[in-house]
């Protein structure tokens, strides 16, 4: 009998690991569809950024209420997972509360600590559900928050609530069973779950053991299923926030990424010396039409996005009613990448399916509305850079398709002919100095 449950546990764990492994390798392959980009070096600064922004939640604290609620869930997640370690050991070896005998009375203290976190997580999840569904905080209601993203967000919160209740049920029944000498290890009273004891006290020992076991299984299977679900959800940020902040851009935000392939051609046109001039020119597109034209970091950004909308809430274009939403840029990039990945996995055409990120997902109107103000980049709690994607797509439109608004085309030709974006004679450039000694009004 005991072996049966161990075998069942190993089977469940195996299935979860299999699905996780498959899914993680898919995501990795998808991210690797992106172009190379050097984000190595500067290890200590990168570590610092990761510790501050991901581990320390630094950027969350620009909005204090969600920051605190989120912090509860985040700390709860980190620490309650220690308990999952015990679950796994118990499951594999058929033990019960493996650590309890070793830790003695300290075990009870630990359990009480965990339950404080459980209570805080519960509180935060409920508060978040209220913010999304009752208070209807505006940034969760924008156009790109269609039914799936909203459902995803709510599902995660509900699952977390249910999982927390499973822990409390398990601990409550366990405490009753400890009193009934059913071979349960005495943990001492655990404050929060003890509140639930009256609910179960009248039940028979057999029923209680069933409920306790059921809650245990429910919690561990739930956690494993949740882990798999997360990889399909915006909730992936719980893992990707770390590498994503580690590899974030350390240059000034205003600096646009250079295009060395263009530098080479320009140098040749100007008769300037070119290093390794005979190296075959890199064949590829200028700018980004589809996800594989973006860098791997842009794609990792897309998977790290939590759809929180802090970017969009600060975007001047979005605030004044333009179509552009930086959050949508990230969601579209991820949706397109998932579509391509799925197709590749099924042996389908992948990128050659006749669709592309531009037009099928992101429209020209959105791209043209951006002021490159960096408000979105500054606002993102996991240092995602939607602007980089926008600018690469503009490059595609202009350089590959010569598709620019007429007024930009005049700006370009002014610059080509008179070296200024406006139509002025270059010889007039210095005229401002003529009347400097005249009395000004």
């Amino acid at each position, binding site marked *: 009998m005991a072996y049966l449950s161990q075998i069942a546990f190993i089977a469940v764990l195996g299935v979860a690991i299999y699905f996780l492994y498959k899914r993680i390798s898919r995501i990795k392959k998808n991210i690797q569809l992106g172009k190379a980009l050097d984000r190595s070096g500067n290890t200590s600064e990168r570590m610092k950024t990761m510790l501050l922004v991901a581990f320390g939640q630094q950027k969350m604290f620009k909005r204090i209420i969600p920051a605190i609620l989120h912090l509860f869930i985040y700390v709860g997640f980190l620490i309650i997972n220690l308990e999952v370690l015990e679950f796994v050991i118990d499951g594999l070896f058929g033990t019960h509360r493996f650590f309890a005998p070793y830790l003695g009375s300290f075990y009870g203290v630990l359990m009480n600590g965990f339950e404080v976190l459980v209570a805080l997580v519960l509180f935060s999840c409920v508060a978040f559900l209220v913010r999304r569904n009752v208070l209807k905080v505006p940034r969760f209601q924008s156009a790109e928050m269609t039914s799936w993203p909203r459902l995803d967000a709510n599902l995660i919160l509900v699952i977390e609530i249910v999982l927390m209740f499973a822990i409390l049920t398990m601990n409550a029944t366990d405490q009753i069973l400890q009193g009934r000498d059913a071979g349960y290890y005495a943990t001492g009273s655990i404050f929060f779950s003890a509140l639930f004891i009256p609910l179960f006290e009248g039940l028979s020992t057999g029923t209680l053991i069933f409920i306790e076991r059921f809650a245990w299984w429910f919690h561990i299977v739930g956690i494993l299923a949740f882990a798999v679900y997360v990889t399909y959800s915006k909730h992936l940020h719980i893992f990707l926030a770390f590498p994503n902040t580690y590899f974030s851009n350390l*240059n*000034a*935000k*205003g*600096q*646009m990424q*250079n*295009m060395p392939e*263009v*530098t080479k051609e*320009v*140098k040749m*046109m*100007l008769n*300037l010396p070119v290093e390794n001039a005979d190296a075959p020119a890199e064949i590829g597109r200028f700018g980004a039409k589809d996800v594989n034209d973006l860098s791997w970091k842009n794609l990792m950004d897309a998977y790290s996005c939590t759809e929180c909308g802090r970017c969009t809430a*600060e975007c*001047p*274009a979005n*605030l*004044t009613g*333009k*179509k552009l939403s930086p959050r949508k840029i990230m969601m579209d990039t991820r949706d397109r990448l998932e579509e391509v990945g799925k197709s590749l996995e099924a042996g389908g055409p992948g990128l050659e399916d006749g669709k592309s990120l531009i037009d099928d997902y992101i429209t020209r*109107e959105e791209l*043209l*509305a*951006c*002021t*490159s*103000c*960096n*408000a979105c980049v*500054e*606002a993102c709690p996991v240092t995602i850079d939607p602007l980089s994607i926008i*600018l690469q797509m*503009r*490059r595609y439109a*202009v*350089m590959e398709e010569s598709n*620019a*608004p007429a*007024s*930009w085309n005049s*700006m*370009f030709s002014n*610059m080509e002919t008179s*070296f*200024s*974006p*406006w139509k*002025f004679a*270059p*010889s*007039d*450039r*210095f005229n*401002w*100095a003529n009347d*400097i*000694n005249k009395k*000004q009004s």
Partner: protein
Amino acid sequence: MSEIEYKVPVMADMAAQGQSPEVLFWVGCAGSFDERYKQVTRAFVKILNKVGVSFAVLGPEESCTGDPARRAGNEFLFQMQAMSNIQLMNAYEIKKIVTACPHCFNTLKNEYPELGGNYEVIHHSTYLQQLINEGKVKLQGGGEFKGKKITYHDSCYLGRANKVYEAPREVLQALDAELVEMKRCKTKGLCCGAGGAQMFKEPEKGKKDINIERTEEALETGAKIIAAACPFCLTMMADGVKNKEKEAEVAVMDIAELIAKAEGL
């Protein structure tokens, strides 16, 4: 007040005489051609003259840094512009550049090095702050702006793009003015709507123009002067104030103009 004869030395002449200035003043296209912004250029040059800084301008040899072309997506044009500017400045052995335009500042400072142009680049707000700190610009009792309510509009390319938030504010503080902040300022400052080559096209369809939104916020502070440190911001905010028919009460001015005026230049 003693009359100063303002001089604007041109790099080509200086080089011909075998001289090199301490700092090159990069005027920028708006500074050269925009009627309103030419006043800012002149104001800054007057300050440089007054302080006695050894400076020069490229004059007719200057050309656009290429910033708007790059943000619009035209990398070829940007690099053509950048390359010829770099060739010119490297030939003159330029070491240090000051500019009043945050877009030029950002491009020269962050984007030219990869193309072979390595200079110490500094924005005029930081430069003015240094002159004030070094006591080279002395504002006796703040001049005519003493106690006046001034709000400062952050330029995206100065602020978020390059983390210059304090220098322009310190310059304004030297005026002994009452500096009031808008609801969205510094890292959260709202764009004027002109960046990313928006200056050179009509805005996309929407409920409102961005500069109107920002102007409303600036007017809410009750400030009589909206200070800017960017030619595009200056234009956008001035248009916004005009749109609200407030141009008689509220002035939109560059920080260099404020200093020059306070000094009676």
